């Protein structure tokens, strides 16, 4: 059974695009047929992060408006078997597509692929409505900052109102040292507020910047800690039980986290 997963956040710059690209690659490396969809119409950049920018001919809006067939717009990633990108239009605005069209598009993609990962634009307006329509599952990305968590909460509410019963959470850019010093919101605090299931924690990792500039998502490198975290998240998405990376020197946080995750 194929599933469509939308990657949301509310606040911009917390790592949605990074997450979409890395999960797409990790799931495909695991043997699945995957399409990553850039729903950030007018502000596309998933193609850049994936290193596929120079191969774009048609885009999502072209498909929706009937200028090309879906297949023509899909860009095959030559490095990873079974991985495709559906790029966003750079020039048109986000009202070029409506939620019904988006839903049809996702349905069509599901016919031939196992996972459809949709990179959602920041904010809560039309672009958000488009990106979430047609998705079976919603993932919320936040960083351990009060403002990002606040927006994640807002998005959780909107997702719940749109019928997503159990949105899942990825906490990105954790800096274990800062958490240990008490300078950063810690994971139990965040889960306490958002009250949703934790799908994974991704450490802050300079390699992400390197990989973004090279157009090679971090999961392609064995040495990246963030890449390892994304590989684990991909396995959890496929239903495997994978223990959380021990990022912290402070054992107590993690034992508390495990307790929270078991729901007691």
């Amino acid at each position, binding site marked *: 059974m194929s599933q469509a997963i939308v990657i949301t956040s509310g606040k911009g710059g917390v790592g949605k695009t990074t997450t979409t690209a890395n999960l797409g690659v990790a799931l495909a490396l695991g043997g699945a047929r995957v399409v990553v969809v850039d729903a950030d119409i007018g502000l596309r950049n998933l193609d850049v992060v994936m290193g596929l920018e120079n191969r774009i001919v048609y885009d999502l809006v072209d498909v929706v408006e009937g200028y090309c067939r879906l297949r023509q717009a899909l860009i095959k990633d030559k490095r990873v078997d079974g991985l495709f990108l559906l790029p966003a239009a750079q020039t048109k605005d986000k009202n070029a597509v409506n939620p019904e069209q988006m839903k049809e598009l996702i349905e069509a993609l599901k016919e031939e692929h196992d996972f459809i990962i949709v990179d959602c634009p920041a904010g*809560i307006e039309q672009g958000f409505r488009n990106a979430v329509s047609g998705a079976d599952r919603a993932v919320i990305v936040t960083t351990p900052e009060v403002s990002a968590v606040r927006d994640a909460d807002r998005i959780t509410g*909107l997702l719940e109102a749109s019928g997503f019963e159990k949105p899942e959470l990825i906490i990105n850019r954790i800096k274990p040292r800062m958490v240990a010093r008490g300078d950063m919101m810690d994971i139990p605090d965040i889960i306490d507020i958002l009250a949703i299931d934790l799908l994974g924690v991704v450490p802050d990792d300079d390699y992400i910047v390197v990989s973004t500039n090279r157009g090679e998502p971090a999961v392609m490198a064995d040495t990246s800690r963030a890449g390892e975290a994304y590989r684990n998240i991909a396995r959890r998405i496929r239903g495997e039980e994978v223990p959380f990376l021990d990022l912290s020197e402070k054992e107590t946080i993690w034992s508390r986290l495990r307790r929270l995750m078991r729901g007691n």
Partner: protein
Amino acid sequence: MEITQDVVFKGSREGLYLILNAKQDFEVIKEKLREHLKKSEFFFKGAPDVILETGEEGFSLDEILEIQNILAYPFGLKLKKVKHREKAPKREPQTERRTVRSVPQDKPRESLGSRVTERPRYTRDITGVLPDTLLYKGTVRSGQRIAYDGSVVIVGDVNPGAEVRATGDIVVMGVLRGLAHAGAEGDTSASVVALRLEPTQLRIGDVIGRPPEGERSAGSEPEVARLRDGTIVVEPLEGVRWEGDR
């Protein structure tokens, strides 16, 4: 006026009119109402008061409560009045089931009941059927707002950026981290109770209180906030004395 569409919103000076076709199947009405609200969510920002108008059929109390809940959460709209056109006198009422039951006599909500002035001959205000207390189960999240004419009980947390407003008391069976305004129409005896009281701001009547700077409430015990001599005072719920206690 014949009701032709099942769900219609209309702005007016009095508030937002919600006109529902009570002849339609109630499940269909609820679904359409939800859809309508979802589509217009950003349009309704500022949470205007809603006046529900039905045709001659009317809704049962249970149905009105369901409509009220849909409006209040997650859309933050407050159902203020219900207008129900009475049947023309010569026709006999045929469907008892669908008409609105009248208020139990013990607690008529006069303050609400006296406001309707439009079309007095055809309109009977039955706002009195709304109960004193709204029970909400679940987390109230950032950007969501629950406003109620009466008291509110939340079984769940009220997060930062969320707002609960009640003309009566507010009880949070969870952590109150957002904004709570009890006694919102001036009731200075109103109180806010929470299992953990860590609000960004508290308001009781027209008094605004903020937790002391920097000090994150250490207490993990249930607390109550009330007005004492014009300031908001927070104390442990255990052993608290209410007016009328002896």
